[in-house]
């Protein structure tokens, strides 16, 4: 179990979110979403609430129902049961100009030039073609793709085409950005760029919701996550709360293997080689330290390890789902 590296800004937001009711209005509200395809329940009672300006992750293995959930939220498909609201509207198409969407299946017209593709996507959301072109050029320059503005989509590399499509998602300055598996197909550098872009959007008050089967993206970026497995959402809440569901563990390494001091250790301590592992007592480790010192245990190292999101996912969604998630991430 590794100590998760969290964004301090996000952490502070979480602290307030977990201790106080979030004062922010909700960008997305969904209750009891159900969707079946050919008799199979792809989504079975999903509840999601995303405040405005948040970065929210929908986490789960392939086939869990992530894309179906996002499509229901966007109004591409309608749920069989349940309700959804986006910025208070039952029909997301009614506020099309406020939403940007990047589907999992990347799609652009192959014969269209990059800048025209961006302008077209802006036009779908109400931007004039002229402004779309101007904004498209600006965005392409900013993302080091100015040289490719007049190349057709089929002439671009996969990564460049994906970036063009992402820029098309943002060209009309939406207030809600929905990204379905945005990191898929990107190299490490571009993944880093995308993470920075998502953080920038959130800092500007844009609500970002993205689906992923790679836990560390969600852990690094998200305020809140919905963990989806088998069409159900066993957990929807903050990343911190998810991690806190598994108590922090203490890892102790001592020189001495035996001694009276071992009686001071909690009953559920387990030993692995030279290390002792036990849940962090409510009183902290300070009372234990005295016993260890007095008992001459010979402390070599003592660390408090917080569960990562992966561990939380395992605990919440189960080993099977966690293994599938790992397998999907390695593909």
């Amino acid at each position: 179990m590794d100590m998760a590296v969290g964004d301090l800004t996000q952490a502070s937001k979480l602290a307030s979110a977990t201790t106080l009711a979030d004062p922010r209005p909700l960008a997305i509200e969904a209750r009891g979403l159900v969707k079946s395809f050919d008799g199979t329940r792809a989504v079975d009672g999903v509840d999601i609430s995303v405040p405005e300006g948040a970065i929210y992750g929908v986490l789960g293995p392939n086939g869990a129902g992530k894309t179906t959930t996002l499509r229901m939220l966007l109004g591409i498909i309608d749920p069989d049961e349940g309700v959804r609201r986006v910025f208070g509207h039952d029909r997301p198409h009614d506020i099309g100009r406020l939403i940007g969407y990047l589907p999992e299946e990347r799609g652009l017209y192959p014969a269209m030039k990059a800048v025209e593709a961006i302008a077209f996507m802006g036009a779908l959301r109400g931007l004039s073609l002229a402004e779309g072109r101007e904004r498209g050029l600006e965005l392409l320059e900013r993302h080091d793709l100015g040289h490719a503005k007049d190349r057709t989509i089929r002439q671009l590399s996969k990564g460049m085409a994906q970036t063009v499509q992402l820029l098309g998602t943002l060209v009309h300055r939406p207030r809600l950005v929905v990204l379905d598996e945005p990191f898929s197909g990107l190299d490490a550098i571009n993944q880093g760029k995308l993470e920075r872009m998502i953080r920038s959007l959130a800092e500007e008050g844009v609500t970002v919701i993205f689906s992923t089967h790679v836990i560390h993206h969600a852990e690094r970026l998200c305020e809140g996550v919905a963990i989806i497995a088998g069409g159900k959402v066993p957990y929807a809440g903050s990343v911190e709360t998810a991690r806190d569901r598994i108590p922090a563990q203490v890892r102790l390494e001592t020189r001495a293997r035996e001694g009276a001091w071992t009686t001071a250790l909690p009953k559920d301590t387990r030993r692995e080689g030279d290390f002792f592992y036990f849940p962090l007592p409510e009183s902290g480790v300070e009372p234990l330290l005295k016993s260890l010192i007095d008992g001459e245990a010979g402390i070599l190292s003592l660390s408090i390890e917080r569960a990562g999101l992966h561990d939380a996912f395992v605990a919440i969604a189960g080993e099977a789902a966690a293994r599938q998630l790992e397998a999907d991430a390695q593909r």
Partner: protein
Amino acid sequence: MTGYETMDANSAISPTSSPRLSFFQAAWVIARRDFGAVLFSRAFLFFLIGPLFPVLVGGLAGSIGKSTSQQAISVEVGLAMSVEDNTAMSEAADTLRPQLGRTLPALRPVPEAQSDPDFNARDFLAARRGNYAAIVTGTLAQPKVIGTQGQVDRWSGPVELMAATAMGASPSTFPSAGSEVVASSASSERKTRIHTAQAAQMVLFLLTIMLGGMVLSNLAEEKGNKIIEILAAALPMDAVFMGKLFAMLGVSFVGIAVWGTLGWGFWAVAEDAIVTVTQTNYRELPGPAVGWPAFVALGVVYFSMAYLLLGSLFLTIGGMASSVREVQTMSMPVTMMQLMVFFIAMATVADTGSTMELFAVSFPLSSPFAMLARAAIEDVLWVHFVAIAWQAVAVIALVKGGSLLFRKKVMKSGGAGKAKKSFFGRSPRATENMPSAAIGEPAE
């Protein structure tokens, strides 16, 4: 990084602008893109010039054939009289030709008759020498026509007239006859208008079927490009359908304009050949009952309606299909049905008001053809406004139905979920009061 920092009052999503595109705006965005993409594609260029090849080849073949046949079947009459008489006959023919035109043969002195004092016209023709329909010998006072019985019967009268003119026996000036054309009967007029109706129906059908096929693969391509999800997320599917239909209608008009212009040019050059080949003098084709301007305008409107009706069916089929082969297979029943309703419309042209004709007028797919025929035969105009409105309703219904079917079968979207209005209350922001709505609360 994102550009949001530059957002200002002039940004596209200003607080005063509507949060969504209207139906027509949405359709326009789609139509504009599709129209431009198809019009400037190489495939469309080939589509435009494709039908011209067989017409061009046929026209060339017809012209060559006509020229060849004209040369083979000569209407030259040889002159084997004295030099002076030959000249007098030629001059007489020139005098008479303005009034008699093609009734008079072309005259040409037979060179062999001038050089051979023992020239025998009968032997000459029997030996199949030269290329004369007949040969005139003798004198102006007693011309003799030598040739087959048919040629003798045909040319004797004109030869006599030319000889008389050469001798000064026919008047030097001819009175100009006035003329007055009278239709023989109402039934005859109706009969000839039926020809106009049938010709117009055939043209309308051919254009609709040829150009309607362009719509078939439209949505299948969108699915292949994976662009359909972006469109579905941004716009209502019926607006997407409508935009695509009108884009292809616009492309069709471009195609018709190109073919029409080339056809007009072809007609200007090869009118005689076309008339000969088709055995129809199009200049004498009777005018439609509503008059040509109204008839052409109605033709344009009915073509649009026929195209939109068939196109909406093809668009739906194309959206359902997952491959080009499936598109072709699934479109066959629609094509057959279109053929059938066209035949019904054609068959009922002469039976205005009959049950079958009323069916043809009412059934949306056959209505444009049946109504165009009515415009040729009857001069009542108000029925056309009613029919056009009815066809427009049918187009809207087919587009709506097609888009719903597409959402159900392809996007897998059913009806909207059951509304739990009590949860959200009446106000869009009612969830502020709901304790479980904020992040931090587990869903369990």
